[in-house]
C-alpha cells in the first residue's frame, strides 16, 4: 500500500535549454528540483542532485546566466539484472537568469547529501544609481 503525501513531482525531467536547442549528449541529462529563496541580503538556490558531491558539481556564470551542473556515476551493479528502473541516472543541469543585483564575487556553494546550496549575495548598492546633473 502506498500513501505518498509529497508535494513535489517524483519524475525527472530534461532541462529547458535557454535557447530552445536540444542536447546531443551521450548521457541522459535531468533538471534538478530547486527551491529558490529570497532573503533581504541574498538569494539562495537549493538544488537536489542526488549521487553527486562537491567534486562532481560545477557552477558557471556567464553574462546573466547561472548554470549548475552535476555529474552522477551509476552505481556499480555488474552482474545484476534490473528488475525495475523508475528513475534514470545521469547528469543534472539547470540554468537561471540572475539579475544585476547579485554580487558575483560573493557567490558561495556547498554540497551535502546530494543537495547543492548556492548563496548569491545581493550587491550592497542594489538600488538605482543616482547621477547628479550639473549645469553645463
Amino acid at each position, binding site marked *: *500500500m*502506498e500513501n505518498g503525501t*509529497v508535494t513535489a513531482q517524483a519524475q525527472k525531467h530534461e532541462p529547458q535549454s535557454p535557447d530552445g536547442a536540444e542536447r546531443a549528449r551521450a548521457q541522459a541529462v535531468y533538471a534538478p*528540483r530547486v*527551491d529558490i529563496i529570497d532573503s533581504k541580503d541574498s538569494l539562495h538556490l537549493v538544488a537536489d542532485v*542526488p*549521487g553527486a*558531491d562537491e567534486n562532481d558539481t560545477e557552477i558557471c556564470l556567464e553574462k546573466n546566466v547561472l548554470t549548475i551542473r552535476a555529474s552522477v556515476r551509476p552505481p556499480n551493479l555488474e552482474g545484476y539484472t534490473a*528488475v525495475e528502473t523508475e528513475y534514470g541516472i545521469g547528469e543534472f543541469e539547470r540554468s537561471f537568469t540572475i539579475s544585476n543585483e547579485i554580487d558575483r564575487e560573493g557567490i558561495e556553494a556547498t554540497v551535502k547529501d546530494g543537495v547543492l546550496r548556492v548563496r548569491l549575495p545581493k550587491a550592497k548598492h542594489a538600488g538605482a544609481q543616482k547621477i547628479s546633473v550639473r549645469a553645463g
Partner: protein
Amino acid sequence: MRRTFTPWDPWRELNQIQTEMNRMFSGLARPGQRREAFPAINMYHNAESVVLTAELPGLDTEKLDLTVTGRAITIRGAYGKAPLPDGETYLRQERPTAEFSRTVELPVAVDPQRAEASYEKGVLFLKLHRPEEHKPRKVTIRKG
C-alpha cells in the same frame, strides 16, 4: 489488404491479466505510467541478493525507517518543511517537503535478518540477501 491473424490463445489473455495484477500489487510502476509514489526506486537482483536504490537527497536519516519482511520492503521518512525565517520567501519551491511511505514487493524471497543499508550523496542503497534455500541452484542431469 493482407492481414495475419494469430491463432487465439486463451492462455495469453489470462497471462496478461495475471501480469497486470502482479504489477498492480507489487507497488512498482508499469512502464510509461506516471508514477505517483515517492521515492522512485530502482531494483536489481542476481542469484545472491536484491539491491534497491532510491534518490533521497538531503534526508535526515534519523527520520528514515526501513522495514524488511520476506517479500516486501517499506521505506518511510519525512522531509521537514522548516518554516522560513522572517524576511525570507520562496520564489520557487519544488523540492519534497512532506512525509512519505512506500511499500514495494520483491520479486524473490529475501532474508530480513541480513539486510544492509547505506546512504551516500543522497542516495539510499539497500542490499537484501536471498536465503540459501531460495537461491537458484543448478540441477545436474544424470544419464540413465
